[in-house]
């Protein structure tokens, strides 16, 4: 290991390894240098200059890109530096639509927080020309309001470098610079995969989800509609954060109670549908292996990944599992099986999904995800939108008693819960595939090889007398790398799980937004995943095929996994897509 560097920051001596930035070194000295454009590991470009320090050089240096050096003496808090930072904020405010009262990010805005912390009390210090931008709200998932953009480029970096999509970038120059799609195209005209990683990494209110809460309130109020709601696994791992609960708090019971109090007629659980997905997907995998089908089979739960594959890697469409994603399966089951059991006309049922995901909004609009010309899912709201509805309804979430999901489509196993974390679908599938193939009981259900937030994971799993090679990728940038490995043919993978967002759905584009500063201290993907793995551990049943309500569904309605009826309701198809749609 290289020797440590010793430097002094505001009189505090710290030792750091070579390659550490002054920004990081300062944190060791107990100093939090303010940042705005900085996003650990994703956007480290020294653009906004909030983090300037005096290192004895001719001018102030941006500490996020300043390497620590031996013997360096750094000042981070002088009157000159404080004034410099205040001026940057005042200039930023001069071109910012200061609609803080109604802004979706009010109280969770990094610009607002900096102004408060650094004592900027003149919002109108510099009144000048401001460009008026049209809000782009044509995407089913993402809204861009450049009137609030601070040009930090965090969205650009995450889109291009983490997700390998790159449908936005800085255009023009100087005062006219804006973050946009090329050739004045709208986001919906580009090959945006709707993942929403731009939203959860935006420091301000320039990017947000396409709000559907009003449509959902209307459905609830409509007496002719029987409204069924279903929350995804990852929602329960993060919803509490919106109400001040510590990250990683599982709020399943409170969430069920809150949903009922909001007025939904039936509260089901997407975890149930996750178990159902495993039944169908494991069956499809076994069929592909025994009948010489296309391998490796790839999971199809993540709509961001599906659109990515359709657009950028259409060669792999035959590898995608034909299974609909869990909430779509739930929609199809609710409008057939549940409707029959309850004697309801499917036309009178509305299915609302609460998802950690903005791409689910796009997915629900896919014409192929319907049955008898009724969409499987009628509305999708994100975790953030649910939190807003709960607040709007005045529900004291933190003090709610725990509730249960309604029966018929409400029971779930631990396998369904872990769908929300990268590797979770794989682990759930392995639990069922192992028992299906070997006919033996799987004693140790935990497959730690496929857990964790590493971008690409591989494992060789002994099932009966064969070793099955599997791989897991999260983040579409990592997916690209894994697909290249598949193309090269170096590894004969049988099954691959891909989720569009880094870390899986727990870090989805519809989840509560965590500041860049907090992300320097903890890995939200790890913390939220802990909540899901904890729920799994505490469940009496941890294998999808042991779910009693799933067994009942097959017994009373679907017959068996992969049956004709299952194919009609629970499976879908994919299409190659163009890069540009104008």
């Amino acid at each position: 290991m290289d020797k440590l560097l010793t430097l002094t920051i505001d009189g505090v001596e710290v030792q750091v390894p070579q390659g550490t930035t002054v920004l990081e070194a300062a944190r060791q000295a107990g100093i939090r240098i303010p940042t705005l454009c900085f996003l650990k590991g994703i956007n480290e470009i020294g653009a906004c200059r909030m983090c300037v320090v005096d290192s004895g050089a001719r001018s102030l240096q941006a500490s996020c890109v300043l390497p620590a050096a031996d013997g360096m003496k750094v000042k981070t808090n002088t009157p000159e530096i404080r004034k410099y930072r205040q001026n940057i904020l005042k200039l930023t405010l001069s071109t910012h639509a200061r609609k803080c009262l109604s802004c979706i990010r009010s109280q969770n805005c990094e610009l607002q927080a900096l102004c408060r912390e650094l004592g900027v009390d003149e919002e109108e210090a510099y009144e000048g020309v401001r460009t008026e931008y049209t809000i782009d709200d044509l995407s089913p998932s993402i809204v861009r309001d450049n009137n609030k953009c601070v040009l930090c480029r965090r969205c650009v970096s995450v889109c291009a470098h983490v997700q390998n999509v790159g449908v936005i970038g800085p255009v023009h120059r100087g005062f006219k610079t804006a973050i946009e799609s090329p050739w004045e195209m709208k986001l919906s005209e580009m090959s945006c995969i709707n993942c929403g990683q731009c939203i959860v990494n935006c420091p301000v209110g320039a990017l947000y989800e396409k709000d559907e809460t009003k449509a959902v309130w209307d459905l609830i109020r409509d007496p002719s509609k029987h409204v069924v709601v279903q929350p995804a696994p990852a929602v329960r791992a993060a919803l509490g954060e919106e109400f001040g609960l510590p990250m990683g708090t599982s709020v399943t019971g409170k969430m069920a109670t809150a949903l009922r109090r909001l007025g939904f007629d039936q509260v089901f659980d997407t975890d149930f549908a996750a178990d159902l997905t495993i039944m169908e997907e494991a069956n499809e995998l076994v069929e592909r292996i025994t009948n010489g089908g296309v391998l490796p089979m790839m999971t199809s739960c993540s709509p961001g990944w599906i659109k990515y594959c359709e657009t950028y890697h259409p060669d792999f469409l035959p590898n995608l599992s034909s299974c609909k994603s869990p909430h779509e399966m739930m929609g199809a089951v609710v409008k057939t099986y549940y409707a029959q059991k309850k004697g309801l006309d499917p036309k009178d049922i509305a299915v609302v999904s609460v998802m950690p995901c903005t791409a689910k909004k796009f997915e629900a609009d896919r014409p192929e995800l319907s049955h008898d010309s009724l969409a499987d899912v009628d509305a999708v709201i994100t975790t953030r939108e649910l939190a807003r509805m709960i607040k709007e309804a005045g529900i004291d979430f933190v003090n709610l008693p725990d509730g249960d999901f309604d029966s018929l489509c409400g029971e779930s196993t631990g396998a369904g819960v872990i769908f929300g974390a990268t590797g979770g679908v794989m682990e759930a599938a392995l639990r069922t595939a192992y028992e299906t193939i070997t006919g033996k009981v799987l004693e140790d259900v935990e497959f730690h090889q496929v857990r964790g937030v590493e971008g690409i994971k591989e494992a060789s799993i002994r099932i009966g007398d064969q070793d099955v090679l599997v791989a897991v990728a999260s983040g579409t940038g990592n997916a690209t790398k894994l697909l290249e490995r598949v193309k090269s043919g170096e590894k004969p993978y049988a099954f691959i799980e891909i989720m569009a967002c880094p870390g899986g759905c727990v870090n989805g584009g519809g989840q509560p937004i965590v500041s860049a500063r907090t992300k320097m201290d903890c890995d939200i993907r790890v913390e939220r995943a802990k909540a899901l793995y904890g729920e799994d551990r505490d469940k009496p049943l941890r294998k999808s095929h042991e779910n009693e309500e799933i067994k009942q569904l097959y017994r009373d309605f679907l017959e068996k996994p992969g049956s004709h009826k299952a194919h009609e309701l629970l499976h879908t198809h994919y299409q190659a897509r163009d890069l540009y749609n104008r």
Partner: protein
Amino acid sequence: MEGSKEKFEQLRALIESHKDQPGALMPVLQGAQGIFGCVSEDVQKFIADGLGVTLSEVYGVATFYSQFSLHPKGEYLISVCLGTACYVKGSQSILDKLSEVLHIPVGGTTPDGRFTLEATRCLGACGLAPVMMINGEVYGRLTPDQVPGIIAKYQPASEAQA
């Protein structure tokens, strides 16, 4: 799109010669501008595909540098100096007059593809302020009423008489 097939072949060869080099985008854009006279949407998509970069990146660079033109320029490029000296001497009124006579905004091109009107920084001929250039020919000490006569010189003979 007459002769465009050959032009795209030329561009393809240019991309091949720069492929996998760091910073290939700038020389390829410059080359493309030379071949086509501008870097249009189709040209930029071709470059993005050829170099394996996103259209966002290509468009970002092309709009950052003023030397790149997104739309085809006219046969005659009229550049009106808005440098300090020319501006003080009233070059804005020259520009406005040109815009009025040609029926195009600043930065625009006439529908017949004959004229493009541009405002530029200092041309270095402050002694002649206000100044404009038409394809390299300098016109100094201008007044707005001279504009129609100068433009007429560049119109085809028949139209100029009419």
